[in-house]
């Protein structure tokens, strides 16, 4: 029974992490129609940032580190968007290719800077003791991670639904030309959303550190998960990303635990079903 509970919690925490990762991806794709293939690398950069920072300064709080990583990655993302992506406005294929190129650059840079061994990220000390609930033992950090994901989901929802920035984003997602015509600074919006997406991914990288560790290839492991979540949940739908993340979190965790050889195929199946029977995803608003 403990096994099922633990796997269940692992699923939830992975789902939470995936949501933090794919929410940014979904936002960027929804508004900018850009499949940001650098997204896994942004996440990994955050994880490395967290691993190295916490290794050097053991007194540092993981929350501060996550915030710091988020800001650094957001800044990097913003530079990339301004210097490279804006020049390719008329070349959507080119945009995808440079995000791919950028992901190669970042992942190799991590290899150069921090070597090929995996660097663990310590769980914050005050969350190391397990929690006992209903007679079961839960790793506390994972519980907290789920809570953070839910909080982030609520925060993003409020941002998109209740603020002026959110209204502009929604307008841009629905009809970019119309938004521009009514005076919404679409170009600046793109930069803001790209930075936001990258920053969330970077922060998520730190938060995922205690579970995943920083290792070369983390970006290649995370990016397809984000892709599958967004394909499943539907592009342009934050709610879809939320639901999709937890579905994939469960499938991946239980799959790896029960049938490790076939875990990837099991991930594959919901994606095939969705594409075959509902190509716009569970909650998608745009046709791919």
């Amino acid at each position, binding site marked *: 029974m403990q096994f099922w509970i633990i796997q269940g919690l692992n699923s939830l925490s992975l789902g939470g992490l995936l949501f933090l990762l794919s929410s940014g991806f979904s936002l960027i794709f929804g508004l900018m129609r*850009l499949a940001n293939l650098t997204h896994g690398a942004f996440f990994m950069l955050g994880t490395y940032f967290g691993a190295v920072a916490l290794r050097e300064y053991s007194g540092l709080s993981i929350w501060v580190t996550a915030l710091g990583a988020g800001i650094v990655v957001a800044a990097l993302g913003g530079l990339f968007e301004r210097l490279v992506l804006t020049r390719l406005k008329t070349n959507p294929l*080119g945009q995808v290719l440079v995000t791919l190129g950028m992901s*190669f650059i970042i*992942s190799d840079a991590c290899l*150069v800077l921090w070597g090929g061994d995996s660097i663990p990220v310590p769980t914050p000390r005050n969350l190391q003791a397990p929690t006992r609930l209903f007679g079961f033992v839960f790793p506390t950090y994972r519980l907290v991670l789920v809570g953070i994901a839910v909080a982030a989901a609520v925060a993003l929802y409020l941002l998109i639904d209740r603020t002026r920035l959110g209204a502009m984003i929604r307008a841009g997602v629905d009809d970019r030309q119309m938004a521009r015509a009514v005076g919404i600074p679409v170009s600046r919006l793109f930069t803001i959303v790209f930075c936001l997406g990258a920053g969330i991914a970077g922060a998520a990288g730190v938060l995922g550190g205690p579970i995943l560790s920083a290792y070369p290839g983390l970006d290649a492991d995370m990016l397809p998960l984000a892709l599958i979540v967004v394909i499943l949940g539907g592009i342009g739908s934050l709610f879809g990303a939320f639901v999709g993340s937890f579905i994939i979190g469960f499938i991946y965790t239980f799959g790896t635990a029960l049938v490790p050889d076939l875990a*990837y195929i099991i991930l594959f199946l919901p994606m095939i079903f969705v594409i075959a029977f509902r*190509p716009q995803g569970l909650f998608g608003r745009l046709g791919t």
Partner: protein
Amino acid sequence: MKWFAGAIIAAVLLLPPLFAGDFYVNLASQILIAAIFALSLNLLVGFGGMTSLGHASYLGVAAYLSALLTSRYGFGHGTAALLSILGTVAMAAFFGVIALRATGLGFLMITLALSQVLWGLAYRMSDVTNGDNGITGLTRPAPFGISLDSPVAFYWFALIVAVIAFVMMAIFVSSSFGSSLKGVRDQPRRMAALGFNPWMIRWITFIYAGFWGAVAGLLYVYYNKYIHPTSLSTTSSAEALLGVIAGGSGTLGGPAVGAALVLLLKNYASAYIERWNMLLGLVFLFIVLVMPTGIVPGVHKLVERLRGRSS
């Protein structure tokens, strides 16, 4: 002008086995394999307007199938090659049905996700694929009893396959089906209104591109006598895509030139720089920002301008 270019190309292709040392002959073989792979991808990208980031799936699966059939199940090379190609083509048909539910970026994402799944499987299913160790100790076929173990012999073999591939793709592209493919790329709605079935045209092309990708995969595993999951990686697909775009997706031969350049760059750069991936990424950025239509069209334009000036 065309005869001149043709003569030069023939000379370039015939030089290595006749005059160069083993290292360069082997390099030339690798270039031929990369060229076939890039040409097969360009059927999708340039002629079909479908950009795929998962083309390594077909190279890798064909290679793995051949490796397993010959080393583990005792099949002869001829049968193994046939079965590998059939298996890969069947997979391409299946993948095509899934990927073609979308177009544009959705298509790209699905092809990427599918190939990543295969890559993950190759790593995880170690009792079948040997995981990170790869499958070693493979042999090259001996068509008509002729051994392909020497670099020169393999080069001739690869060259014959490459020429056949190029000619067949040239025929495909200029046929009525090829014209309808280009039509669907440019104006899918108009083509449907004229009576063409856009989905079927794309799907058949997808399968055909997978077929030639499988052929490249067989040559790849014969050349290396070894197969590893990295052959299925996104880097592998990306290198082919870079070759297509750098060489020029609008031409038939451009991707071959681009693939050659990418391979040469990889070979020479890795002598000086350890980080090939980073260089690959930078080259991507450079090509897309500076030369989006590719090298072959760029050179063509340059030649036209020079001829224009002198006449």
